[in-house]
Each structure stands twice: as C-alpha cells, then as structure tokens.
C-alpha cells in the first residue's frame, strides 16, 4: 500500500503512537501479501474469463478461414491493449493518491456490480448461461457465410477484423482493471503479470485442446471477479473519499465475506423465486 498523501509524523512522538506504528509495521508484510494475493487473483481471473471468450471467436474464425489473418488480428489487438496499459499506468501515478483511489474505486465499483449482477441473474436462472460451444457454432457459420475478400498484405480482412475486434473488446475491460489495480497499489507489473499469465494459460490450453473451452465454469469465475472488483472498489473509493477503514487493509477480507454472503443469498433467493414461478418439470 503506497503512503497516503497526508503525513502523521507529529503523532509519532507519543509512546502510544510509537507502539501503534510498531504494531502496524509488524503486520505490514501479512497485509501486503494478502492484498497482493487478492490483486493477483482478481487480475488473473478477470483476464482468464475474458480470454476464454476471445479464444472462442479466434478459434471459430481460424478453423474456417485459415490461421494467418486471425493471428495477425490477435497480435494487433495485443499491441493496442499493451499500449493502453503502458500509457495509462504511468499517467495514473501523476494523480494525487486520494483522487486516484476515488476515481479507480468508482470505476471498479461500476464494473464489479455489473459483473456481479449478471452472474447472480445467471445463477438464478433469469439469464441464460454463456455456452461457448453454441457461440463457436454461430461464429463458425457466420465466418463460412462471409464473402472471402483478399486485401492488402495478403490478409483476409474479415478474419483479421473479427479476431482484432474480439480480442480488443474482450481485453479492454481487462486492461482497465489491470491499470486500476496496478496503478492504485503502485504495482502495475504485478497486475500485468497476472493478466499475461492468464493469457498464456488460456492460449496454451486453447492450442492443446483446439476447441472452445466449454468446461470452464465461466459464471462462477465471473461471480468471483465481480466480488473482488466490488470489494476493492468499495475499499479504495471509501479511502479516496476520506474514510479510514477499521483495521486498514484487514477490512478487505471482511468486506469480501460480507459481499459474498450477500451475493450467494441473492442468487439463492432468485433460484427459489424462479422455480416457484415455473410449472413442475420445466427447466429455466
């Protein structure tokens, strides 16, 4: 956790304050490793789930129209995403820490609540679960039906554009999450490493399996990511607004547990409500 803008050096002269500071320093490694683990998990899971969706699009286009153009599209999208992270990351360091935490916290709260809301609606049966096999079939049919137009540099521009757009759009939210997490904690490299690890994992599994990763529990991962984003968003936004959390960063797991309990309760309520509304034997 980077030091806050306001200092408290004058309080350090009293014995009581000295003891408090010593205690805080003793607990610092544990707090830091906990927030590091949560930060890594958030960036890794968010990246992995979005990359699974992007992989389905790239696979569908590649299988039907050949691999060269979609892979060039993927590489181009990766360059754009890396540029977004490289440009925004250092720029965030110029902001005062409280303003940064307020802005990033608000952004993460917006993202987190959107992810959580959709995941709860899916868990409750009010939204269909995303079926990678079905998406793959639809994308394959679309790619086969599209006219094959050769372009400059011998690229199939349909295949290039679909792969580029798929990776860019799925990756943009991840780029914002990586920049937000990394920038606020002063550890952009850690968040970027987590995202790269997720990309590598999904990429390698995709090459080995050579099919959409339909067995990945996407909604459970989105549920977890939604919880983590909402937890960090609440924590940082409150700190940015001038609030001191009881226990400092130790409030993070408590906040996470509270939100997890609430989300599970809401999902269970929606499931029961859905079943009560349906006639016996009908499936959501």
């Amino acid at each position, binding site marked *: 956790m980077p030091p806050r803008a306001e200092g408290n050096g004058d309080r350090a002269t009293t014995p009581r304050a000295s003891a408090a500071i010593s205690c805080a320093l003793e607990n610092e490694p544990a707090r830091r490793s906990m927030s590091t683990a949560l930060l890594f998990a958030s960036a890794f899971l968010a990246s992995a789930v979005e990359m699974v969706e992007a992989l389905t699009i790239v696979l569908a286009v590649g299988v039907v129209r050949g691999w060269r153009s979609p892979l060039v599209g993927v590489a181009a999208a990766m360059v754009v995403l890396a540029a977004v992270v490289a440009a925004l990351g250092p720029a965030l360091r110029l902001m005062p820490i409280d303003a940064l935490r307020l802005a990033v916290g608000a952004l993460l709260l917006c993202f987190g609540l959107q992810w959580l809301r959709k995941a709860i609606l899916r868990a409750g049966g009010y939204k269909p679960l995303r079926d990678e096999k079905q998406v793959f079939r639809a994308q394959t049919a679309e790619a086969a039906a599209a006219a094959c137009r050769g372009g400059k540099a011998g690229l199939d521009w349909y295949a290039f554009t679909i792969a580029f757009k798929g990776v860019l759009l799925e990756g943009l939210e991840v780029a914002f999450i990586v920049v937000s997490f990394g920038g606020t904690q002063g550890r952009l490299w850690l968040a970027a490493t987590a995202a790269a690890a997720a990309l590598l994992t999904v990429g390698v599994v995709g090459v080995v399996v050579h099919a959409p990763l339909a067995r990945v529990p996407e909604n459970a991962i989105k549920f977890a990511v939604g919880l983590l984003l909402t937890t960090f968003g*609440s924590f940082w936004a409150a700190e940015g607004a001038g609030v001191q959390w009881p226990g400092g960063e130790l409030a993070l797991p408590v906040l996470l547990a509270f939100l997890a309990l609430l989300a599970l309760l809401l999902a269970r309520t929606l499931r029961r409500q859905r079943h009560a509304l349906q006639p016996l034997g009908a499936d959501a």
Partner: protein
Amino acid sequence: MSHLRAFAAFWWDFLVGDDWRLAAGIAVTLALTALLAHHGIGAWWLIPLAVAFLLTTSLRRATRSGGSS
C-alpha cells in the same frame, strides 16, 4: 454522426452497463461518503450498505422484467 453515436453507446455500455441506476447510486453514495468524512463522521459502513441496497433493488427490477435488462 452514426459513428459518434456508436462510440458514445460503446462507452455508455462499457461504464454504465445494463442498469444506469447502479452507476447513479454509486455516484450519490460516494458524494455522501465524502460529505460525512469531511464533517468528521466515520462513514466506512455507508458504501457496503449502499452496495447491498443497490444490488438488491437492481436485481428486483431485472427479475420483474424477466431478467432481460
């Protein structure tokens, strides 16, 4: 003009999503939290409570409309 509209629609969908009331609720909550903190009132409890309220009411609206929104 249609490109401009599509660009604005992309960012709206990206940042605000399916329920604009969630984003508006977050903005109001953060403003209230800052106000309370400014007056020396420990308002750490406000955001978790607001998140619980906003999420519950948003889900209630969505399920009333069949979950499509």
